[in-house]
């Protein structure tokens, strides 16, 4: 069965410093992996997706993630945090080929001025 584990429930950074949100996955076959962001009172928005092409995936708003099969990881990074990045972030893996998504528990990103 497919699953993801987000290693930190809460991450706090200062504005302008790098962001690292960690995610490990478990999959019985080559997975499709995603990061979604959820701002308060707004719908989930796709940040980026990995679908077995390039292992370094670039997304919106300066975020990127690297697929590392040897470490079963798909960590999300950004070189410099903005206040507007404060939100809940979900690491997601697909289950089968139906597009059904399995979500991690989420990481709350706090950005301090």
């Amino acid at each position, binding site marked *: 069965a497919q699953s993801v584990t987000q290693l930190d429930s809460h991450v706090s950074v200062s504005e302008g410093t790098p962001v690292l949100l960690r995610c490990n996955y478990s999959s019985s076959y080559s997975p499709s992996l995603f990061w979604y962001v959820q701002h308060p009172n707004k*719908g989930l*928005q796709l940040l980026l*997706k990995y679908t077995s092409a390039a292992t370094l995936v670039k997304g919106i708003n300066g975020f990127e993630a690297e697929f590392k099969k040897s470490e079963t990881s798909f960590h999300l990074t950004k070189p410099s945090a903005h206040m507007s990045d404060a939100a809940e972030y979900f690491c997601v893996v697909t289950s089968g*080929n*139906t*597009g*059904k998504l399995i979500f991690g*528990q*989420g990481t709350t990103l706090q950005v301090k001025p």
Partner: protein
Amino acid sequence: GAGVSQTPSNKVTEKGKYVELRCDPISGHTALYWYRQSLGQGPEFLIYFQGTGAADDSGLPNDRFFAVRPEGSVSTLKIQRTERGDSAVYLCASSEGTAYSPLHFGNGTRLTVT
């Protein structure tokens, strides 16, 4: 263009009552998904439609939950004999239906059972 629309945005009901939650997907999207998100948790899969048929309903917690999509567009999630534990945000998403199509989520319906 218009995104996924969910109505109502908030619903408060008494324990034991019946509720219906509506989802209007993006026009032309063949796949439609329902998820449930409890406080402090990630969304949990409930059911997936491809066209009019439920292709995967393995996430429905019990037989009080039912969903339909009679014309392959709008979907309704129905909950009978609601319980306090049903309180959550119910999310709908739609996609073009291929394996790598991104899901587009609505803002959800917050259901509170008192």
